[in-house]
């Protein structure tokens, strides 16, 4: 199903400066794979060699950190919004 994904500034060179993109996906993991299909190179920036979300990347589904949900297996519904946000901020 279509979900919108908010792309942070450091990755917008890969999305032709698009801030909000749409992908078809059932889980967060799917969404990352779909992003890779549409914007080659983006996956390695988000996940490490073991497939885990990188230390300094936070991913949110509708305002909630996916680490409080089911991480990459978190299911996505139609109309949900995914945000990718650099972890280094604040304090």
């Amino acid at each position: 199903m279509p979900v919108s994904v908010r792309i942070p500034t450091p990755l917008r060179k890969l999305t032709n400066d698009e801030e909000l993109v749409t992908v078809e996906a059932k889980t967060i993991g799917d969404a990352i794979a779909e992003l890779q299909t549409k914007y080659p190179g983006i996956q390695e920036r988000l996940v490490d060699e073991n497939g885990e979300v990188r230390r300094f990347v936070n991913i949110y589904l509708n305002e909630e950190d996916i680490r409080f949900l089911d991480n990459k297996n978190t299911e996505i519904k139609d109309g949900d919004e995914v945000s990718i946000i650099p972890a280094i901020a604040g304090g």
Partner: protein
Amino acid sequence: MSKKQGFMKALKCRECGTEYPLEATHVCEFDFGPLEVAYDYDTIKDSMTKEAIGSRPQNMWRYRELLPVAGEPTVGTKVGYTPLIKADRLAKRLGIRELYIKNDAVNYPTLSFKDRVVSVALSRSVELGFGVVACASTGNLANSVAANAASAGLKSYVLIPHDLEQGKVINSLVYKANVIGIKGHYDDVNKLCAEIAGKFGWAFVNVNMRPYYAEGSKSMGFEIAEQLGWKAPQHTVIPMASGSLLTKVHKSYQELAKIGLIDESEVHIHGAQATGCNPIAAAEKAGLDFFKPVKPNTIAKSLAIGTPADGFYALRVMKETGGHAEDVSDDEIREGIRLLAECEGIFAETAGGVTVGVAKKLIESGKIPADDSAVLCITGNGLKTIDAVDGHVGATREIKPSLREFEALLEAEKKVTA
């Protein structure tokens, strides 16, 4: 690469070392790692001698070579050089040979250590041409941004959790800052700020200005070392919210050794959190090098960051220095506040109660040996969080203006204490 500015060479990714120009940007494009200011230490070594520092006014800018502004600072020029108190009475109560309090509860102008980071961030914002400054805050930072922006004629937006202590809200509103309460925890505020920083051309002190901002915390460590007679303390106990202060105090001791102002010595850096928000302390105690985010629930609202940006690095510093982390309950926090007040006459905010409570635990468990010397970093003023101790510090006894009643009161007191 941009050219050198002052004593700064570039911004550099802490993870991969990629260099960036000295602009308002905080994250590496390749691995999302934090950008840090790289300095020209050779030039600094020649300029920043003990004699030179000693001839300068007593504020944090006496260490200006190691603070990231290109020219002379323009905002917060009187911040810092807070007292370092030898706390003999508290030392006795906690059971340690020697104890000092670094008292940023009386930092100028807004009574918290945040004036240090804000004076750097706003001075640099002015250098980079910004007219609007902003922040995500648990309260103290909002107060400091609001006040320092007002004095510099800058417009400010401060974003805070909607349920902060009244003292902290009013302490931002009075400066005519735009105060926005976000319905959520600090982590929600921070996420929103990370999304909007850069979008409106504002200097977000702890987002796009973070590489400069965070360096301001080093001044607390520089002062401690100078006030101890140019040496680093054996133990430093530091409250952790994002973990940034802890990493920067450690860096300050390293830098002073690097430029030859102090000898290399063994320093142990310890971190303090509230049990109701202890992602870093829990990870340290479990021996992990990564933390699990938490949903905060503590009276220490200034430390209530469930997803600490520098948690990873704070864990690394504690591990490398043989330091430890601990956490304390709300009751232990109040006890810590009372202990510091009763022994030393210093009224700290809840974060100070956390630091004292954690120091007590670390000394009791022998993680800080009783024969050693320690410095506790007190970062904010108790007058801002009176809600947290109201009803826990006794009450006024009221009498008529009559000698008879006063004598009766003292008589009754004698019976109670007898």
